[in-house]
């Protein structure tokens, strides 16, 4: 047992060590992309009619008059001390803004994941068990439909059906109705970063379904494939011969083995979930990182953009790590290896 724990810790350490150069590359890539591209954030902040002297002073204050490489070294230096800098637009430490918005995205992503798993596991198992017959074909069609329906179309559709026509669910997490109908280009104008984090209540349902639908579709297909593969194995026959009821066989024996490849897909799908969160958060004015990133991009708030991308990259790496560990929980054989 102890040797096992050591091996796991070593594995973890190696993965963490590998993550560092990746993070460095991401940070550098985003930094140079931002700084080598035309578009002056100061001009944008002060407006077209700003006096040249004011623009010049502000550039100096923000350190933007220095050569790019100097700025880069300074940025890295501050970054290793945990300082993400000051947001141009909100005049607040970037870290503070991100910390205030991050929980909302995590909540949304977890809810979407829950929606996806609740839909995909029973659907996938049913499809596999009824392979080739109508439940399988129907579920196959529905999951392909789910895959093909862009979430920026699902969102407005759900709003139209549930919130407006039926009046069952609230439309938006934090604000009146007009928030959700703001065009994307107007997002940059919103000057509110300090939004209360929505509670995990009914407001979460529509965004979670919107974000989780595509994932549910992908997972259904995965669960089906992998359950099908397991159903043909000898141990299934043994379990049935022992007289176990079909439910136990399917959900305790088959599903546990069948979930191994599904867990991997979950990790890989996180990127899609994160970029989907941008759309979903925009549609439902959900105060998370996705919407914040778009706001930051639209207002050319360099430090905030860098902070957002860094946060997303770290999340991605950490989740992949967790996937890796989960993998060994679901499949002890991986742990041994």
């Amino acid at each position, binding site marked *: 047992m102890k040797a096992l724990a050591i091996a796991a810790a070593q594995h973890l350490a190696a993965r963490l060590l590998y993550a560092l150069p990746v993070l460095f590359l991401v940070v550098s890539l985003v930094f140079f992309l931002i700084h080598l591209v035309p578009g002056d954030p100061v001009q944008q902040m002060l407006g077209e009619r700003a006096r040249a002297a004011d623009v010049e002073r502000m550039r100096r204050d923000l350190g933007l008059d220095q050569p790019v490489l100097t700025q880069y070294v300074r940025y890295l230096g501050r970054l290793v001390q945990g300082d993400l800098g000051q947001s141009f637009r909100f005049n607040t430490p970037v870290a503070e803004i991100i910390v205030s918005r991050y929980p909302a995205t995590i909540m949304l992503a977890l809810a979407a994941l829950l929606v996806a798993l609740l839909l995909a596991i029973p659907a996938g198992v049913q499809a596999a068990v009824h392979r080739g017959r109508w439940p399988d074909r129907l579920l196959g*069609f529905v999951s392909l*439909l789910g*895959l*093909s329906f862009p979430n920026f179309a699902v969102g407005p559709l759900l709003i139209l059906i549930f919130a407006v026509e039926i009046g069952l669910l609230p439309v938006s997490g934090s604000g009146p109705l007009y928030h959700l109908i703001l065009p994307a280009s107007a997002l940059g104008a919103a000057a509110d970063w300090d939004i209360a984090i929505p509670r995990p209540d009914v407001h979460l349902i529509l965004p979670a379904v919107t974000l989780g639908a595509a994932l549910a579709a992908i997972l259904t297909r995965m669960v089906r494939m992998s359950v099908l593969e397991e159903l043909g194995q000898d141990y299934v026959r043994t379990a049935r011969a022992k007289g176990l009821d079909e439910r136990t066989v399917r959900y305790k024996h088959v599903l546990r083995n069948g979930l191994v490849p599904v867990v991997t897909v979950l990790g890989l799908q996180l990127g*899609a979930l994160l*970029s989907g969160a941008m759309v979903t958060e925009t*549609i439902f004015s959900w105060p998370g990182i996705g919407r914040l990133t*778009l706001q930051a991009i639209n207002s050319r708030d360099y430090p905030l953009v860098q902070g957002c*991308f860094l946060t997303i990259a770290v999340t991605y790496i950490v989740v992949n790590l967790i996937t890796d560990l989960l993998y060994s929980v679901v499949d002890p054989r991986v742990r041994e290896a």
Partner: protein
Amino acid sequence: MKRNPLTVVSVTILGILLLCAAAAPQLAPRDPFVQELANRLQPPSAAHWFGTDELGRDVLSRVIFGARVSVWIGFSVVALSLLVGAGIGTLAGFYGGWLDRLLNRVVINTLMAFPGVLLALAFVAFLGPGIGKLILALSFGGWIGYARLVRGEVLKTRERDYVQAAKALGVRPGRLMLVHIWPSVVPPVMVQAAIGLAAVILSEATLSFLGLGVPPPTPTWGGMLSDGRAHVFDAPHLVVFPALSVMLVILSFNFLGDALRDRLDPRLRKELL
């Protein structure tokens, strides 16, 4: 050979898509840019089959011209990604050794650590909007999937007896790769390309929806959806038609990808049906 009706429908829809893209000016009933402010937000009618938008432009014409953007970007990105990805994947798989370690472990794995759509987003966000930039941005992350796939297939095929035999007969590496190895790499790549087209068209629509893709007034499905969102209650047709177009096209590419896979890989055919 049994024909799946869904495949026939998919091919028909994609045929219409290509036709719209190729002959948009001939097919569109009106100029997609002309504004008739007196006729704004009209519901579908005989004069405007899909209604008009908030500037009084004909929605049907804009949907048809939008197909052109989707197809152009979709095929360009897949072609570019495929070219780069297949090249790198073939080299890594064929030569192995340090080249493979460099390309596969360092380059591909590093890029894989960052979600592709976000990379594209970062690119377009700072390069600014535009079709050409969008193509570059989407290809930047797009080639990785093809490279991995091709590398794996080349690795497998390289060890086959007929390839070894050809090698023993003194066939040059270039010819070995193109004539002996590539034919068996093509089928899985085709499947991936069909599904990849759907993904690219979806990404383009998503970025345009977020206001980071093709700039207005060029009609794109994502952009139309974004504009239509403001009128989702008083003029739902502005959302419905572009949303349906995106959905049908992506659904068709996905169906086609599945059908291709079934036909090209008999082992999978049994499992999927």
